[in-house]
């Protein structure tokens, strides 16, 4: 089984703020992490490899420092990585990102069986890149999976896809693209041996000229959406804080408040 895991390095969102004067993102000094949901995708890929054999290949697009996130995946146990890094890829929206990732996978890992992604990244929260990638690669998709069984002989996969009241069991032929939610598994921590060996594993850096794709569809040029303005959300306003001294009186205060607000 050749399993591709697409990952993203994201800023620790708790630290991102808008500069009230310039109205731009203040990202300086904000630490970067591996997107949390991607860890579940990697863990599942490793489990599939442990069960059926094969290779786990990490693919990411991002600036040179995204290598830190790659190293974490390799330390967890992935075999090698492909890092798409070029100024020409910068400014990509979800469509251009999905196009670039899809082109790279098609060109460099054409015989893949499964692509795993975290359902969404915490910075943009769009959940669009995996699905758009599935369409570019003409794959079936199963989004939001909490359980996966791969049948390499039957060339199929059965996955539990989360719904609003439970889950549906979906069967698809291989190759397939799956997106992981946290119910899927419990990601392992990198071992000391893993961390030490990660540096010796192969990470291939790919630039725009290495890709067969239409350069007009990369980065900013290939992005149909444009952020025209960013602004700070409306502050919530200062709330009322009460110290409970008599539960019944407190309950009455809450009910009165909800009544005034028209909620009950």
């Amino acid at each position, binding site marked *: 089984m050749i399993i591709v895991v697409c990952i993203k390095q994201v800023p620790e*969102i708790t630290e*991102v703020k*808008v500069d009230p004067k310039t109205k731009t993102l203040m990202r300086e000094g904000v630490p970067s992490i591996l997107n*949390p949901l991607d860890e579940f995708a990697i863990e599942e890929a490793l489990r599939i490899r442990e069960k059926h054999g094969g290779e786990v290949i990490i693919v990411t697009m991002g600036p040179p420092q995204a290598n830190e996130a790659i190293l974490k995946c390799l330390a967890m146990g992935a075999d090698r990585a492909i890092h798409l890094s070029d100024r020409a890829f910068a400014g990509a929206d*979800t*469509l251009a990102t*999905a196009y670039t990732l899809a082109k790279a996978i098609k060109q460099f890992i054409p015989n893949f069986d499964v692509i795993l992604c975290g359902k969404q990244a*915490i*910075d943009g*929260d*769009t959940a*669009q890149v995996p699905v*758009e990638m599935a*369409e*570019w690669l*003409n794959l*079936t*998709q*199963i989004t*939001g999976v*909490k359980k996966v069984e791969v049948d390499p002989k039957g060339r199929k996969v059965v996955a539990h896809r*989360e*719904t*609003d*009241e*439970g*889950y*549906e*069991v*979906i*069967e*698809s032929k291989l190759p397939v693209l799956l997106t992981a*939610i946290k*119910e899927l598994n419990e990601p392992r921590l990198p071992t000391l041996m893993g961390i030490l060996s990660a540096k010796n594993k192969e990470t291939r850096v790919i630039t725009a000229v290495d890709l067969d794709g239409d350069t007009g569809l990369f980065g900013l040029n290939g992005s*149909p*959406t*444009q*952020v*025209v*303005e960013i*602004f*700070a*959300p409306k502050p*919530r*306003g200062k*709330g009322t*804080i*009460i*110290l*409970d001294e008599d*539960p*019944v009186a*407190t*309950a009455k205060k*809450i*009910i009165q408040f*909800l*009544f005034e*607000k028209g909620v*009950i």
Partner: protein
Amino acid sequence: MIEVFDTCTGCGICVSRCPFGAIRIVEKRAQINEACTLCGACVKSCPFGAIEIKRKMVTPADVSSYRGIWVFAEEHGNHLRNVTLELLSEGRKLADKLGEPLAALLLGRNVTDFIKTLSAYGADKIYVTEHEVLERYNSDGYADVLTGLIVKHKPSVVLFGATINGRDLAPRIAARLRIGLTADCTGLEIDEEGRLVQIRPAFGGNIMASILSHTRPQMATVRPNVMKRGEPDWTREAEIERINVMIDPKAMRTRVVDIVKEVADRAVNIEEADIIVSGGRGLGSPENLKLMRELAEALGGAVGASRPIVDSGWLPHHQQVGQTGKTVSPKLYVAVGISGAIQHLVGMQTSDIIIAINKDSEAPIFKVATMGVIGDLFKIVPALIEELRNAKKENPTR
């Protein structure tokens, strides 16, 4: 333009995948007739790569040929999702501002009953497609039919609810048509040039972004519970257009083998609930979830939870609010025994009213609370349940 190359073997796989019955095999070669909507299903199905659709990028000159606001009507079992009605109400405003029609797209098996409701909430036109393969949502079937309709009728805007299925479907269509898509919007406006300004939170709600799309249609998924649902007008009658499709169930690449219901608390999907009562670590033990259920019942809301509750297996994942769970925007969010880690706050801080009950006065949840109560939840919550029940007895309409 659609083109069939010499590599076509006349195998006929595309014929079974075409929802619009637009392909015939003539002398061992696929022939495409005028019923073709350029939905792209055949291109995707061809094992020989023998069919190609060349899609032009939309130029500024083309923009004016795209007209109308479309809303994907998402049904769920025997009802329409709330977000569909919210989108129709919002779509009505946008359509009136542009002076363009509002249409709803209704797909399913026996869905005719929903037509009245879609009309009442503002649709001028309803495209209805009924087929057994569409009975339950599936990515391929829905994407093929909707792409075909979009290419044929060229709407200016297409809106989807940012639901589990809406977010599975919309990106599929966007990539096929190579157009922009904005996820999980919380605001929509029309600017002076008649363009759709799509407003959404990013970085966990720490910033807001206004986004424009340079392609057409302008597509967005919209967060449930954010747009206001208008009053229905049951005298309205929309124009109905039925689209007959032929979908071969065997040509679908995925198959739903089983549907498992894990009954959610109070059987309400938290993304659509107006009122959510969420419990956190402060509850101490799973038996105390009873308090959450009783409070939710007294308020007429759904039960949610913070991550530790779900990680401990007390409640299923689809009831989790926060970064690795769901993002919710109810009218009232009651956080009980939740300290308010940022990962939780990003999932609920756009709620209208937040009431927090916690014994730790330093808990970060109080920073976003409209009303914060410092005290023992095991004393306050039972009193609140009791008082709510009393209030209901005194005034049953309340």
